[in-house]
């Protein structure tokens, strides 16, 4: 009675390593990127400008500049990628089985909707 756990063929396992590695490095790279983008964003909307000043006019002016459109778009993409990758581990740590799948699907859908919606505003806002 030897225990030889059934494992998929080595080829597909190699790609599993590549996928995990990509997720791992993306989480960290988006993190480092966000350190600049998010803190910059926060500084510009809370410190340099007071929050009460960040009204519709402020957004109008801001999104008139291509720099800020790119900044905010990249930040949005990065933050959602980062959060989804991060939550991947969080979900795994506190759930198991089908529950895990359901929570993951939810996170994924919510993030997808936010991303679409968010990008739409930025583009609409910038062009309108």
């Amino acid at each position, binding site marked *: 009675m030897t225990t030889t756990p059934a494992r998929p063929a080595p080829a597909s396992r190699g790609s599993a390593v590549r996928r995990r590695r990509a997720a791992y490095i993306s989480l960290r790279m988006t993190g480092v990127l966000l*350190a600049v983008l998010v803190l910059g964003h926060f500084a510009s909307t809370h*410190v340099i400008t007071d929050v009460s000043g960040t009204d519709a006019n402020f957004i109008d002016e801001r999104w008139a500049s291509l720099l800020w459109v790119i900044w905010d778009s990249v930040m949005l993409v990065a933050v959602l990628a980062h959060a989804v990758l991060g939550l991947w581990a969080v979900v795994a740590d506190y759930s198991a089985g089908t529950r895990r799948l359901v929570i993951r699907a939810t996170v994924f859908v919510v993030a997808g909707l936010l991303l679409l919606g968010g990008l739409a505003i930025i583009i609409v806002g910038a062009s309108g």
Partner: protein
Amino acid sequence: MTLPQFLFFLGFTIVALVVIAFTVVVLRSARFYDGGAFPTGAMIMRLARPGRERVELQRWAFYVHRISGAGVFGFLCLHVVDVSLFAFSPAVYDNVHSLYGTAVMRVIEVGLLFALLFHTFNGLRLVSVDVKDLGIVASTRVLYVVLASTLVFGIVGAYYILKPVFL
């Protein structure tokens, strides 16, 4: 309070509740699975002792990193929605957005700032642990820097955010 403001408030409450619930899950499961997260007397004594026992600090850094990450994500969800009002109607946006200037919201923003600062600096620390191959001792030292930076930047930021309340 206008209807959009009320809806924002509702959304905010939901996010806050989710974050609180998540905090409870993290700390409770810590109690069951790694031997207890609640600040007991024995644990506080450990924090004060030098050497390996300082790992208690690492443990808390992990809990807080987790909770702050999820919290910031929760707020982000809300924030994307409220900014999207701008595309829909700048007037409604302004109406909802005026809430951000209230004293209560400013206090909450300070909380957000601290969460963001800690998560950012600690996240950079975790990246550097991998990149620079820091061990438990070095990474604990960097953790002190993380805590100090969070405090310094947080206080400076809090000053600017809260200034209008007192003026």
